[in-house]
Structure formats: structure tokens, C-alpha cells
């Protein structure tokens, strides 16, 4: 094992570049999947006929499939039916689809946990269904959802590593490239990559815990 050689300036910078891509992809997927998840959850919560059943089946199917398969499918199989996307877009799309299914269940559980009496009270004091959702149910549900959603976001950051199979130049890919130079670099480089993931995720979960206490 050659720690000194492995941690040369160029190698570390290369890994940091990969980390930048990981974070960018994760951030895009987090925002998109959260919006999509809220939409899906509200449609199911409001029991809009047909649509909510279709969404239920899709969400269940996606939740029960390996993310690796979804990434593969989006990048390699969809072009066969005419949907061609770059590696970067494919990664974001696959992660968004998977995470939206996971998060929509969290949002739905949060909405369902709101006491029915509150909704009835809001409706009978003259608020419309949308207003009730907007001012009564969602704000409370969101507060309860913070811990599981943060957990989901952390797993999303970890899951960006899976996009290495479609050669997205993220952290795992950088680690693979650098460690390919020299067999003695393998363990030092993977350990450094692990450290990067750890620092990011541990920071997020620590900050989240502090916010949770305040809320």
C-alpha cells in the first residue's frame, strides 16, 4: 500500500472533482424527486380515481426494484424505444424516479398521520380542500417527515455511487480510475473516497439532528 503516492495532489484533486459531480447529481435529484414525490403523494392522498391507483402500482413496483437495475434500464434500455439521454441526464432521471417513489411514501405517511378532526375543523371553518392541504396538513406533515427524508437524502448521496456502472464521472468513478493506475493505490484511494462520503453524510445528519431538536 502506497499512501503517499496515492494521495498526490493530482489524485486528490481528481477525487474532489468526482465528489463535485456526485454532489451536483445528488442535489439535482434531491430537488426533483422531492417535488415529484409531493405531487404523487398528494394525488394518492386525495384519492383521485384511476390516477391514484396507477401511481400506487408504479410506486410499489419501483420501490421493490434494485436502483442499479433502474439506472441500467434508463441508460441502456430506453434508447431502444427512442428515449436517448446523456449519461448525466440518465443518472439524474434514474435517481429521481427511484427516490421519488421512496419519498412519496414518506410524504403520504406524514399526511395520513395528521388527525382527521383537524381537517374537518379546517373545512368547516370555511377553508377549501386545497387551502386545508396548504395551510393545515402539509406544514405539520413536513415537520414530521424531516427525519426520514433526511435519511433518504443521505442514501441518495450514497446511491450516486451506483452510477459508476454507466461511467458517470462521479466520486466512485474517479476512485476507480485513480486506483487503476497502480495496485498499491487501491486501498488508500477507496479509503479516501469513503472518508469523503462519510464527511458529507455525517455533516448532513448532524445538522439535521440539530434542526430537528429546534423544530
Amino acid at each position, binding site marked *: 500500500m502506497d499512501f503517499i503516492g496515492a494521495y498526490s495532489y493530482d489524485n486528490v484533486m481528481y477525487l474532489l472533482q468526482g465528489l463535485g459531480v456526485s454532489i451536483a447529481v445528488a442535489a439535482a435529484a434531491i430537488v426533483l424527486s422531492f417535488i415529484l414525490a409531493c405531487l404523487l403523494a398528494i394525488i394518492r392522498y386525495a384519492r383521485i380515481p384511476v390516477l391514484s391507483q396507477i401511481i400506487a402500482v408504479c410506486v410499489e413496483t419501483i420501490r421493490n426494484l*434494485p436502483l442499479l*437495475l433502474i439506472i441500467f434500464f434508463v441508460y441502456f434500455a430506453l434508447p*431502444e424505444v427512442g428515449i436517448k439521454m446523456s449519461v448525466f441526464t440518465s443518472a439524474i432521471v434514474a435517481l429521481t424516479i427511484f427516490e421519488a417513489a421512496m419519498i412519496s411514501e414518506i410524504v403520504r405517511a406524514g399526511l395520513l398521520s395528521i388527525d382527521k378532526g383537524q381537517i374537518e375543523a379546517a373545512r368547516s371553518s370555511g377553508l377549501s380542500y386545497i387551502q386545508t392541504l396548504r395551510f393545515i396538513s402539509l406544514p405539520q406533515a413536513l415537520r414530521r417527515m424531516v427525519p426520514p427524508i433526511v435519511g433518504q437524502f443521505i442514501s441518495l448521496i*450514497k446511491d450516486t455511487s451506483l452510477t459508476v456502472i454507466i461511467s458517470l464521472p462521479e466520486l466512485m468513478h474517479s476512485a476507480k480510475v485513480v486506483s487503476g493506475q497502480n*495496485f498499491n493505490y487501491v*486501498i488508500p484511494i*477507496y*479509503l479516501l473516497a*469513503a472518508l469523503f*462520503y462519510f464527511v458529507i453524510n455525517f455533516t448532513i445528519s448532524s445538522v439535521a439532528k440539530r434542526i430537528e431538536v429546534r423544530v
Partner: protein
Amino acid sequence: MISLLIDHGDRYIEGFLNTLTISIFALIGSFVLGTVIAVMRIASIRPLRWIGTAYVEFIRNIPLLLVVAIFYHGLAFLGLSGFVAGGIGLTIYTAAYIADAIRAGIQSIPKGQIEAARSSGLSYLQAMRFIVLPQAIKIVIPPLGNQFLNLIKNSAILGVYAGADLMYFGDQINSDTFDTFNVYLLVGVFYLLLTIPTSFAVRALERRMARAG
């Protein structure tokens, strides 16, 4: 898709069975390792507690792929196959999650019960065996089921390291037939055959435990 199943059904089934096997082995392994870590985390000896906490915090915050990569590439001199390296990685990774579930289960039993058991003459181990663990296990079973579900899905990572699982055979069939869309669709169906019954079973268990309260 039907013709794929007829022509390559044997490889699909082999991958399916390997995925199931590795998931079951990793579940057993991570249950054992997870229990040890959980006990370390609530032990009264501080260094043990530190090690247990460090393990859980570190593993939970790094990707599974990295854990498997270290065993497969980093420890290549051990000559582990993708299947074994993947199994070890899955076990180490899942154990961190199971350890947390078990710790939460044990700590959810009020201390008064242990004290009551101890003062009515039971030893510490007896109190654990007859009072705490039977109650804790009820709380722990649903999260364990969820971890099994995650294990099945996570085991797809073996495919990256030639692990002879469902994903790996899917890749092979794909490179033979170039029928990418249908090949992976069928891989998905095989995964669902494993995961949907598991998630129904987990939910049924959750409901039953909630009723038994």
C-alpha cells in the same frame, strides 16, 4: 419476452436462486454481527461503546459499492470471488442497520422491568433471556424484514463484480441477445418475484405486531 424466458430461463433461474441465497446468507450473517454490535453499543464498558458507535456511524454513511470494492479490489490478494466479496460487503453494510434496529428494540423496554426481574431473583442473563429479548424481538422483526428487502435489492451490486447473481446473468444474456429492453424488463420481473412477497409479508408482520402491541 416469452422467447427470452424459453431460451435463457435456466440462467435467469440460476441468477434468481443465487440472489436469494446470498440475501439469506447475508441476512443471517448481518443479524449475528448486528446483534454483537448492538450489545457493544449498550455495554457499560466505554471503549466497546465507542467501537460499536463508530462502526454504525461510519458504515451507514458510506456507499455499499465502496465496501464491496474494498473487499474485491483492495483485498484482491485474498482471491475472493465476486459472490463472496459481495456477500461479505452486504453483511458488513447491513449489520450496521440491523445493529441500530436491535439497539432501539432493547432500549425500548423500560428499565424498571429489568430491575423488577433482577430484584425478583433472576440473573442478568435470565432477565435478558426471559423478559427483555422476547419483547424486544417483537419490535425488531418488522425493521429486520425491511432490511431483508433492502438486502435483496442491494445484492444487485454483485452484478458489478461478476457475482453470478440475477443482475450478472442479465448482463450476460444481454450481451448474447442485444435485446436490452426485454432482458432487463425480465430481470425486473424476477426481482419483483422476490421483493413483492417479502414486502407484503413485512407489512402483514408489522400490522400483527402493532395489534399485539
